[in-house]
């Protein structure tokens, strides 16, 4: 929009047309553009110096002018007016919400989704001793936004809150940890001797925002230890930005000039403010993004390549399809207690029936690579744990004829209605559920339903509201459907195997389960999971993971429909350059965890 403003006015357009142009674009930034236009247009993007980390078409904008030139516009994290910034509440506002970008609150360690490494955060170092203990050393000179000093006590108290209020998410930390102690700047964590699950503990350390003890001690007292019920419009953290303003239309973060990490990150972030406008729909945000009114976002944009084909300086981390690195796998859950679906041959046939290529190409807009018969996400951080040859040799791929062969070999015969049945058990009618409005999953299930119908299995889609869907999965009150399991994190892929297959604390139908929603039963899986979690070194861990994957392929308790990025990472280099890309990979394409690296390294384009 800046471009429009500065290009048109000197070009001799009438005032009316200029006003119409800026008026249509609207917003504070448009006003800023007017001011800038009279001050002389911006410099030609990439004219003299070679800009890196720009749009996939090699283009960059000319930069905004006025105040907006120093601000970063971000979107895709907050969809309703912010009401509560208590990070422990059920639905806190961004950026206090759990495991998002570390702008206000920070974590001890930062996960890097491409390399799988854990980078230092509030903790300068971390040392894992076998699967017994973890030792962390905190950074020097950390301060809270209110100027008070950050100490190991704050860290201990943050995790202690999980014991004070057992309803909090952080409470699960204590199922994996026996003890957490501090000695000066050093924190020691004793891992639960029976579970020995280092990965889960590291995940907690990389995801849990550290909060000030001084504030939350008072909260615990005021709320009678019901931390989640506390409501606040402030958020005191340690991060490079502090909460300045939050209203119905936007959330504004202002740079913390006294940020402790000036030396660690080699400077303060270049932007003075981060602004998150609140949109009503994806489409609003996508339009603003295309016009360069948003710099970076994680909204779903179908056919994003059309933006750079239309000469917009829009870019993604990967230059070619699938453009985003995979970070999670939407899982096709199967309720193995239903007659028909309890037959492993039927599940195998269903896995063969799905046209994964179609789903990746249309429902996912090409943002998914070829799906493998494995619970390990290929490429990226988890690739090291994947036995690709086995997945291809023993797994499945779309083959409708093979699917019918499997059914016939298992003794199923087609009835008059065109659907397979055996011993009076008809395959269907089954409902495929997923939340209404999760458009890519909705579309994927439409394709799956058609594929099932095509091989003679009666299935149709049903899209309830999100809360209903979630309850249906947890209570086992479903036939089949698409739901999420653990994405790429320090505990993956173990966490995902646990989510899909674990027989620990199996909840009967009708009661809330936290994993294995399909209620798939197996005698050996728990031992395999334990072995994998407690594996002392990488070689034995890979062996254990492969054993789990073999069992998974033999039993098909669920299967992935596609891959999805952990976070969509799309940028528009109209005002900032040096975005992380495959060729400029100093930072991962993410917002959370190590994704704050790029925040310090962006370069302003305009003057």
């Amino acid at each position, binding site marked *: 929009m800046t471009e429009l403003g500065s290009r048109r006015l000197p070009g001799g357009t009438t005032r009316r047309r200029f006003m119409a142009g800026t008026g249509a674009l609207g917003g504070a930034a448009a006003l800023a553009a007017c001011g800038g236009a009279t001050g002389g247009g911006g410099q030609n993007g990439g004219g003299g110096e070679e800009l890196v980390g720009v749009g996939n078409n090699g283009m960059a904008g000319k930069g905004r002018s006025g105040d907006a030139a120093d601000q970063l516009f971000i979107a895709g994290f907050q969809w309703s007016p912010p009401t509560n910034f208590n990070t422990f509440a059920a639905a806190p506002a961004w950026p206090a919400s759990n495991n998002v970008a570390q702008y206000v609150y920070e974590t001890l360690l930062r996960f890097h989704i491409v390399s799988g490494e854990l980078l230092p955060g509030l903790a300068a170092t971390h040392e894992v001793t076998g699967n017994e203990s973890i030792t962390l050393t905190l950074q020097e000179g950390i301060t809270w936004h209110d100027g008070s000093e950050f100490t190991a006590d704050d860290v201990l108290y943050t995790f202690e809150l999980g014991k004070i209020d057992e309803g909090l998410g952080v409470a699960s930390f204590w199922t994996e940890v026996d003890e957490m102690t501090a000695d000066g700047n050093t924190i020691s964590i004793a891992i639960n001797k029976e579970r020995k699950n280092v990965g889960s503990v590291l995940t907690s350390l990389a995801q849990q925002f550290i909060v000030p003890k001084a504030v939350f001690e008072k909260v615990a007292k005021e709320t009678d230890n019901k931390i989640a019920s506390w409501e606040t419009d402030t958020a005191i953290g340690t991060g490079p930005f502090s909460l300045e303003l939050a209203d119905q239309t936007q959330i504004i973060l202002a740079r913390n000039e006294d940020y402790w990490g000036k030396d660690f990150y080699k400077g303060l972030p270049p932007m003075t403010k981060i602004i998150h406008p609140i949109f009503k729909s*994806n*489409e609003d945000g*996508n*339009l603003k993004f*295309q016009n360069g009114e948003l710099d970076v976002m994680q909204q779903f*944009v*179908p*056919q994003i390549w*059309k933006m750079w084909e239309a000469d917009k300086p829009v870019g993604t981390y990967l230059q070619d399809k699938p453009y985003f690195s995979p970070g999670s796998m939407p899982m096709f859950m199967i309720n193995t207690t239903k007659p028909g679906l309890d037959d492993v041959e039927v599940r195998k046939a269903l896995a063969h029936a799905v*046209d994964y290529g*179609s789903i990746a*190409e*249309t*429902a996912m*807009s*090409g943002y998914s690579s070829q799906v493998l018969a494995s619970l390990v996400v290929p490429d990226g951080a988890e690739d090291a744990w994947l036995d690709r040859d086995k997945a291809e040799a023993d797994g499945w791929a779309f083959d409708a004829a093979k699917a019918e062969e499997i059914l016939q070999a298992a003794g199923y015969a087609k009835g008059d209605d065109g659907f397979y049945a055996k011993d009076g058990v008809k395959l269907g009618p089954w*409902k495929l559920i997923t939340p*209404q*409005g999760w*458009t890519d999953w*909705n*579309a994927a299930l*439409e*394709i799956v*339903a*058609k594929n099932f*119908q095509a091989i003679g299995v009666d299935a*149709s*889609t*049903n*899209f309830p*509201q999100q809360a209903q869907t979630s309850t249906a999965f947890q209570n086992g009150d479903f036939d089949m459907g698409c739901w999420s399991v653990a994405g790429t994190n320090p505990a993956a892929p173990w966490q995902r195997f646990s989510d899909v297959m674990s027989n620990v604390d199996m909840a009967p139908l009708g009661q809330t389960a936290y994993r294995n929603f399909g209620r798939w039963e197996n005698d050996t899986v728990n031992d395999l999971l334990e072995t994998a979690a407690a594996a002392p070194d990488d070689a034995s861990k890979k062996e254990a993971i492969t054993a789990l994957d073999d069992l998974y392929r033999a039993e098909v308790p669920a299967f992935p429909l596609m891959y999805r990025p952990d976070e969509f990472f799309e940028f528009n280099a109209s005002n900032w350059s040096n975005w992380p890309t495959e060729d400029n990979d100093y930072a991962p394409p993410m917002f959370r965890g190590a994704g704050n690296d790029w925040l310090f390294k962006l370069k302003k384009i305009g003057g």
Partner: protein
Amino acid sequence: MSTVNTSMAEETAAPRANTLRSFNFSGRFWIALVLVAFVILLGLAGLVYPTTAGEKVGSLYDAPGNGLLLGTDNFGHDVVAVLMAGTRTSLIIGLVAGTVATTIGVGVGLLAGYVGGWFEELLMGVTNVVLAIPSIVVLILISMSLPESTIWSLAIVIGITSWPWTARAVRAQASSVATREHIDVARLSGARLPGILLKDVLPYILSYAVMAFVLQVAGAILAEAALSMLGLGPSGANSLGTQLHWALAFQAVASGAWWAFLPPTIILTLVSFGFLLLQASLDEVFNPRLRRGKRKQMKQAAARRVEEARLLAQQAASEPAAGPPEPSDRARAGEKA
């Protein structure tokens, strides 16, 4: 109603040779008929179109070309095939819902209008309450609570939420018909309530019921589109509404894929415009007061009437005087109350 147009009476006494002409179909009627016929043919064409709506022939939003007249939708399906299937589904839903709504509306209206008294108050009370609730809200709530959404359930849900205005209008007509003499005759000769309603009241408001039905069909098609656009449409079936739903969900407007959202929009517009026009032109056919025609035709008709009157007068003069023709029921039925 009591005054009978004398020229009308003469016309009935001397029917014209061309019966089709006597219906006085206007240009509007033919345009409406062409529109509706086009949409129906489009729906039926899907049965012979080479590709089915579920067949993947391309990728996400392929532009028109390469043998695909309107490109592909977000699933990679041929938009033309989907449009044909969608039109068929929408028409089926419209017809079923229209039948349900008109049946309920006419039934309630007839009973209330004919029986009268506290029964009328009760039925109309219920009708007014239902009328006061925005039907789209009720529609959404019912559709959401249905365990399964098929085109039949959707049609019935739309039908049972859109009858009230028909009931109100039919009641007004029925209570007017109920005061006529022939009803007394029927009652005196021992006809039962259902018989009277069906044989003596309904025929007099049939023209109105037909027009209400046409309106209900158009309304139901639009209601289905609205529901489906919200994602409450029939599962596993294509309709014009679900087509728009997916176009919205996959941001066809923003990505410039006009072929994904314009065709269903145009067909929806044609359907509702066609049906509304049909209703308006039928109104003209049934109600002589609204008849319009080309000036030439009217002059011709006037000249013919003069000629007919002259012939009649001649006849009357040459034969012994017969009584003036009774104001027939047909004349009254033609004239809307």
